[in-house]
């Protein structure tokens, strides 16, 4: 399915009950993917600031959300400034 079809399917409002629950699943997926990408970024040596910039949020927000959730084996960069 290409992106146009995705948009069409997602915008299909014929069955809002099913649609709403599908959107809830989508949100869960987005959260899970975000955690996974943040971990990958830290493993690659990106700083919290760089991750925050890419996500479009503040460094504090991303740190608060993920500092304790990420895989504990990841070496977390300390702020140097």
């Amino acid at each position, binding site marked *: 399915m290409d992106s146009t079809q995705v948009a069409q399917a*997602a915008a299909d409002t014929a069955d809002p009950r099913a649609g709403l629950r599908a959107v809830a*699943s989508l949100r869960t997926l987005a959260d899970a993917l975000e955690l996974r990408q943040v971990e990958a970024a830290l493993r690659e040596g990106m700083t919290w600031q760089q991750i925050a910039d890419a996500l479009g949020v503040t460094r504090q927000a991303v740190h608060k959300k993920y500092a304790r959730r990420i895989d504990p*084996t990841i070496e977390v960069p300390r702020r140097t400034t």
Partner: protein
Amino acid sequence: MSRFTQMLATGYSVSINAAEEASRFGVPAVDIEHVFLALVIDDGTAGQVLRRAGITLDAARKAVAEQHREHLSSIGVQAELPGDGRIRFLEQGGIDWTDRALNLVSRAGGKHKSGDATAVLRELLAEPSGTVDELLERLGTSADEVREQLDEAATIRARTAAPARRLGRTHTVFVPSPPSEVWALVSDAARLPEWDPTLETVTTDGELWVGTAHTTRPDGKPLRLRADTARLIVERISAADHRVEWRFTFPDAPGANQRSAIVTLEEAAGGSQVTVDFAWIRGSGPRGLRRVVAPLARLIARPVVGIALWFQVVNLASGISRAMR
């Protein structure tokens, strides 16, 4: 155990199991489907009712994954939740709860409700989003059927746990593996570190089994620990008929309490009922002046000791359950 501590213990194991299930799916917050999965392996009435309806942990996990997959594909997204099916180590506060999951669990502990796993299951059955209804249908049953079974089971008096030993506590969990497999785990000294979260290694010099305690947390931070209790002797006092007794003594600290853990297995529908009886056996105690005040210190410490024992027995039982999942 009193009703309150039983409730506390149940709540603690349900929330740990739910968080672990969430971590297997790679999602950062516990939602109602993870609470449902935790109840499938509950050792009490709730778990028994679900398992009697033919629900296994594997089938329930598959149903959760399938449900997400179908919801996503209905809006044109072909994706799986990214979890690798592995339970991750969870730091204190390392996993969140969604508002609806948290509200559901606190409703189960509300006025005139028991707050145990059965109350949580009743809340799940009445949950308005339809997630649990749909899961139960996928698993070949329905919310009404489960509710009926619960009502029926409510008339059977709950089995009360055997009285714990002095300075001891007992905790029972359900493990979704047959007793023979659980036995291979719990009766083998070399496999103790797989389920006793305090042990890092257990090795033998031919005659004695010697264990070492963890000195760092899984994230590498140092643990605060008495240096003289880092090394311990592991003895298997007895092992027969699916009942094993382990004794842990501290050769470098003869005054310290010994630990004793008795694990008993019973066959249960879809797996095993595992009972852990954990106790401290008093060592020779402190010397000198501290010996004189020891009885008073013990009296003052009694509530703290109760909580510590309870925490240790629940952790051992959860450790066995985790190793078999």
